């Protein structure tokens, strides 16, 4: 049984369909990266999985099976027991995710007290331990968030997510707001932590480079749908969806001799209208007529899949050839 099994999940904000019939599974110990342009519905997916959507956001349909139980139909009071002990999150901007009027220590202790209360000294130890783990001097435990730099806050958010050693962590762009050097540092930090804690994760980012580095598998999201899922290495070497291909071209190898960044012309579609056909078709360099009319369901087979008429064609051709 997969740790997390998302089935036909659809999420809306009023008339905006931000996540459209998304299905994916996540195995224990696996890190699934989710990439896509801004507004493609990555955060929405993350919030929906944890049932943390803010109004007017609402799950329209679908199931989110966590260890076999459907979180969508679980009562909030029952869900509360699973929160943080089994599923925790790192929010898009760690800066605003910390309560500005509570010390760092308080924010750790809140979580501990709510789920696994222990003695004061044990708690103190634990906080210090967690801070050290993300290379922050434990002295900072008694500081307030505004007294720390952005990078520190982000690392604290990560430590906070790990404090109860959950099975699943949702990372929503944990590095986006930071500059390259800090970003790099956090990614390395995460890798170490993963080897220590063996958590599974949904790693959301628009930075394909980072995702490819950290994730076992990568899901590419476009206009609320997954267009391609593949193990990282495979995605890097043989992207199937034209969107994935285009996206990869935006990340040149910094060491190569000639650097040429190729963008994707055009803009992502308006999510408040549902159009027939492939959402990427208007920007696709390999568009065919049927792309404009026939939509294609994404099917995940053995942890991989692609939603492209073109990809289907090549597959067919191969079989015949």
């Amino acid at each position, binding site marked *: 049984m997969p740790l997390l099994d998302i089935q036909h999940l659809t999420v809306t904000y009023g008339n905006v369909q931000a996540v459209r019939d998304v299905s994916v599974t996540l195995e224990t110990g696996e890190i699934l990266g989710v990439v896509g342009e801004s507004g493609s519905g990555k955060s929405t997916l993350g919030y929906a999985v944890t049932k943390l959507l803010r109004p007017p956001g609402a799950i329209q349909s679908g199931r989110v099976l966590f260890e076999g139980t459907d979180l969508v139909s679980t009562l909030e009071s029952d869900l509360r027991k699973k929160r943080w002990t089994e599923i925790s999150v790192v*929010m898009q901007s760690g800066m605003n995710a910390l309560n500005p009027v509570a010390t760092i220590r308080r924010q750790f202790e809140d979580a501990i007290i709510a789920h696994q209360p222990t003695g004061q000294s044990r708690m103190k130890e634990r906080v210090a331990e967690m801070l050290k783990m993300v290379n922050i001097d434990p002295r900072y435990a008694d500081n307030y968030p505004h007294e720390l730099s952005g990078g520190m806050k982000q690392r604290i958010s990560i430590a906070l997510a790990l404090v109860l050693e959950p099975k699943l962590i949702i990372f929503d762009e944990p590095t986006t707001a930071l500059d390259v050097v800090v970003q790099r540092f956090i990614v390395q930090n995460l890798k170490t932590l993963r080897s220590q804690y063996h958590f599974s994760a949904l790693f959301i980012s628009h930075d394909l480079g980072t995702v490819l580095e950290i994730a076992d598998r990568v899901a590419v999201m476009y206009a609320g749908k997954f267009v391609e899922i593949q193990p990282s290495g495979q995605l890097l070497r043989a992207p199937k969806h034209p969107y994935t291909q285009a996206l990869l071209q935006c990340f040149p190898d910094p060491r190569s001799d000639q650097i040429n960044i190729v963008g994707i012309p055009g803009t992502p579609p308006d999510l408040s209208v549902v159009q027939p056909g492939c959402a990427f078709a208007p920007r696709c360099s390999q568009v065919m007529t049927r792309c404009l009319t026939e939509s294609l369901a994404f099917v995940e087979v053995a942890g991989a899949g692609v939603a492209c008429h073109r990809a289907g064609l090549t597959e067919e051709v191969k079989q015949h050839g």
Partner: protein
Amino acid sequence: MRYLVRRGIMLLLTLWSAITLNFLLPRMMPGNPAEVMLAKFKGKGNMGPQAIHAIKVMLGISNESLFKQYLQYWQEIFHWNFGVSYTYFPFSVTHMIDQALPWTLTLIGVTTVLSFVIGTLLGIWAAWTRGSLLDSVVTSVLTFTSSFPYFWFAMIVVFLLAFVTNVFPNSGGYGSQMSPGFNLSFIASAVYHSILPAVTILVSSLGGWQLQMRNNMISALNEDYVVLARAKGLPERVLAISYAARNAILPNMTGFAMSLGFVVSGAILVELVFSYPGMGTLLYNAVSNEDYPLMQGIFLMIVIGVVMANFVADIVNVALDPRIRRGGGDS
């Protein structure tokens, strides 16, 4: 600390200007209040010039230069001496304020605090159950009551509860045959007399706090840190109180301090309707009798009250908001 010192200096400056304004105001007004006062001291016959002079001296009506008067005024203030009241001569302004202040401080002080506390709690609760029937009922009822003219509501309350049904006394601060003191029956009587005015003030002021807190709370609930707290699986109570409400209340503290400061001025219109022996009634009497030493004295008390309350608010803000306490805050 630095922040407090700066705020302190600002408030002292403010105090100085308010006191100066207080000095100038009656002197800039048209008409001659001193003459009106003199008329009050006149009998039916025509007073002799010595008598007039003697009365003027006794009331401290002065023909000295403005600047000299100003200096004297400051000297008096430092001695906590605001002169004699015209209306209550020979009693001093200080004496009259001493008489009225405790009533106002207790009645208006307690109701202001109650109003803030209840209003804030209702606001938190309404935001928490946002969209529910109870939320919309409570919020719209309070929106309506907060637009009540205080005095109008007070008059209706008096008529219904103190006259038609005779449940409560219609006026005064305590039973008239009681002598003020620290005994149970007196306190009980004072409380009994204060219920109607308190309710009036509460009903018409709750809405403001409720609405404000509800707004703040709703936006706080949308903050990332509250969503994260929910993700942490914290108990609802902790989430509502120490995460959302704790942050949402901060912007209201200054307003609360201001209104605490204004407690000193009493609720003029309500006190008037209930003939409550507080600062509001005293001020109204001072104004209608053009007793400007008394007026100035009361005004000064109010300004001092507000300035002090503001300072306390700063301290409270510093205590509650680490961003102000430990630098980093932009102010």
